[in-house]
């Protein structure tokens, strides 16, 4: 948990996460795109549980729903679940070394992706096997970079 957080960094990181989720990734590699918004929800609930909670995560998820054209509420629900799980474990999470944090990112974003694809398939999307877990893996790999970058920005600007 950080003692201070910077609200401009917070807003900017969410907007950038939304931009990154629709753009700036090589075509044909979309399956491997990290779940940027999920990472942001994870980071901000982890670092600032008092300010960023389930409702904000849900709103962010709704924006992603509109960008991805999924039924409104699917990503909202999945993001809210991430926020809830981070809130329940964040006291332990703070003690974990980086590799273990990465594992938690993989698990939580995996749960997120699983929920999204479960709901989509219930509504009639195609079964994609287990390939929907790729974003969780790539997110876990970029987590250290994202975490350190945002920590530094928060310390400098907060």
């Amino acid at each position: 948990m950080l003692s201070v957080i910077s609200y401009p960094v917070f807003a900017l990181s969410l907007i950038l996460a939304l931009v990154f989720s629709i753009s700036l990734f090589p075509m044909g590699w979309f399956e491997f795109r990290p779940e940027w918004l999920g990472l942001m929800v994870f980071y901000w609930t982890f670092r600032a549980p008092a300010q960023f909670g389930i409702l904000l995560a849900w709103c962010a998820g709704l924006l992603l729903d509109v960008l991805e054209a999924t039924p409104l509420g699917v990503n909202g629900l999945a993001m809210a679940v991430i926020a809830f799980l981070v809130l329940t474990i964040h006291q332990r999470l703070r003690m974990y070394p980086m590799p273990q944090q990465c594992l938690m990112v993989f698990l939580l974003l995996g749960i997120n992706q699983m929920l999204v694809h479960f709901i989509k398939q219930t509504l009639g999307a195609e079964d994609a096997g287990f390939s929907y877990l790729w974003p969780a893996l790539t997110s876990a790999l970029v987590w250290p970079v994202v975490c350190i970058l945002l920590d530094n920005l928060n310390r400098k600007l907060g």
Partner: protein
Amino acid sequence: MAGGAAIKTIFVQGPVPGFRLLLVIVISAVLIVADARFDRVTSVRSAIGTGLAPVHWLGNAPYELQDWVAGLFTTRDDLLAENEDLKARLLILERRALKYAALASENNELRRLMNSSEVLDDRVIVGEIVGVSPDPFSHEVIINKGSRDGVTVGQAILDAHGLMGQVQQTSSFTSRVLLVSDSSHAVPVEAVRNGLRAILLGNGDINSLELVHVPDTADIREGDLLVSSGLGGRFPKGYPVAEVARITKEPGEPFVNIEATPKARLNQSSLVLVVFSPDGEPDADGNGPGQEDPPVNIGLEPGTGEVR
């Protein structure tokens, strides 16, 4: 460290998260059902989509910058050559259009003599693809024309080579287009050679489509051009959609497996045409047996794509 303050910040959420999560789950479930089954939140989605226009714009900015930089380094000679080239092509196309105008009026004359309805020409506007769907499992693109330009849900989208898809959602500045290759998309088509009608389904592969429910004995060959038949009222008649690529007959099966290649360059085109169907009665010859009830996406709301 003063214990009170530290403890306060750690346990700040208390027992509330569980309740909030429950609340959010219930709201989400209601929203999902309202959206997916009853289509009730289109206006909300469209409003949020309009608000997110800057995100689309930011997402597209790097590519525009790249184009702009590339434009800076184009030499005058290249531009002149390109200009000449375009002029030559324009001339060829204009000559063809002259001939086409005469043919169209003659055709209408003949139709009038036969007491059937006249064929009106479609009005189009040009749009540009500004984004592709971030979901790897769906084939959708985003174009830079929205409800402000009169685009409505269900309109057909073409590129220079054939039918690309249809508008699925609109916001003020952008629209989302479902491509013909998406696995939930279907187009009613007919073969140019003999007028054989069938349904062309997308199967999630950008380079191939599936022609379904064609009987074993039907007269169809590899290389046949399939054009939209206009049945169902959603797509305008007569635009090329695909070409039959491979036919496999399985003994014992009632239908043949037919693979077709889309004519439109689904993953290359950047300029597209949005078609406004002219007001008028649907085609008079649209009452063949069995083909009017395609499975998805078409024929549900005939006439919704019509704007004058």
